[in-house]
């Protein structure tokens, strides 16, 4: 049954890779950033599955760090990286 859990982790890994396509395409910095957020949530799920499958409880601590990380990256992005200047507004559709 542990094999099935790793199988589900692989499915989640595939959704993460799909999210990378959004990082590539953008077109807006916010689009890329939300894909990084996607890795946070999906990464937590992958880690919880692996903690059970690999029988390493400490992986749940790593999941805890992943959970905080997405929020930290989003705050750093909004507060630090995204100063909207007058010359860069709007999104090409």
């Amino acid at each position, binding site marked *: 049954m542990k094999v099935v859990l790793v199988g589900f982790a692989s499915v989640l890994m595939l959704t993460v890779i799909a999210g990378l396509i959004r990082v590539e395409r953008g077109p807006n910095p916010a689009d890329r950033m939300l894909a990084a957020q996607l890795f946070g949530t999906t990464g937590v799920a992958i880690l919880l599955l692996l903690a059970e499958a690999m029988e390493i*409880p400490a992986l*749940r*601590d790593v999941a*805890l760090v992943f959970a905080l990380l997405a929020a930290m990256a989003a705050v750093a992005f909004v507060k630090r990286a995204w100063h909207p200047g007058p010359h860069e507004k709007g999104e090409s559709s």
Partner: protein
Amino acid sequence: MRRHTRPLERAVVFAVVWWVVAEADPEGWVFGIPFVGLATVASLKLTPTRSWRIRPAGALRYAWYFVHQSVMGGIDVALRAIKPSMPIDPMIFRYRMRLVPEHARVLFADTVSLLPGTLSTGFEGDSMTLHVLDRELPVEQSLRDVERRVADLFGLTLSAEGGNLLACENITGGECR
């Protein structure tokens, strides 16, 4: 409104969190006790007073409502995403909030983002702007419901004004009707 610090209450909360994080390992307290102390000091420095309290019965009602609504929200958006026709018809709205305290507004905005088809996109004075996935959704009714539940959770009374929803032409607000 009564403001209180209650250091002991905070320390107990942090201790419980540590107990959970350490998975009840007794050896964990070697690190746990100093860090519960540090966390308490840090929280007293960062938010010296707090003027809100949570009503247990209201919290239970809120939690039930929240779980129910976020399940509906997840199913709704998942179906819209995978249907080949992708049935979305987005619209910007502005909602005049009846909740006044800031902590209640933050919880309100976070809850709204997990409800079916609504996403909070910021505050403007007493109003919240939101992005709605489908303009046919009963947005006003659900927003009023959430406000009532949040008020119930914190034991607040809703202000008589507001509670109305305006459809906006533009993302930055502008003309809303």
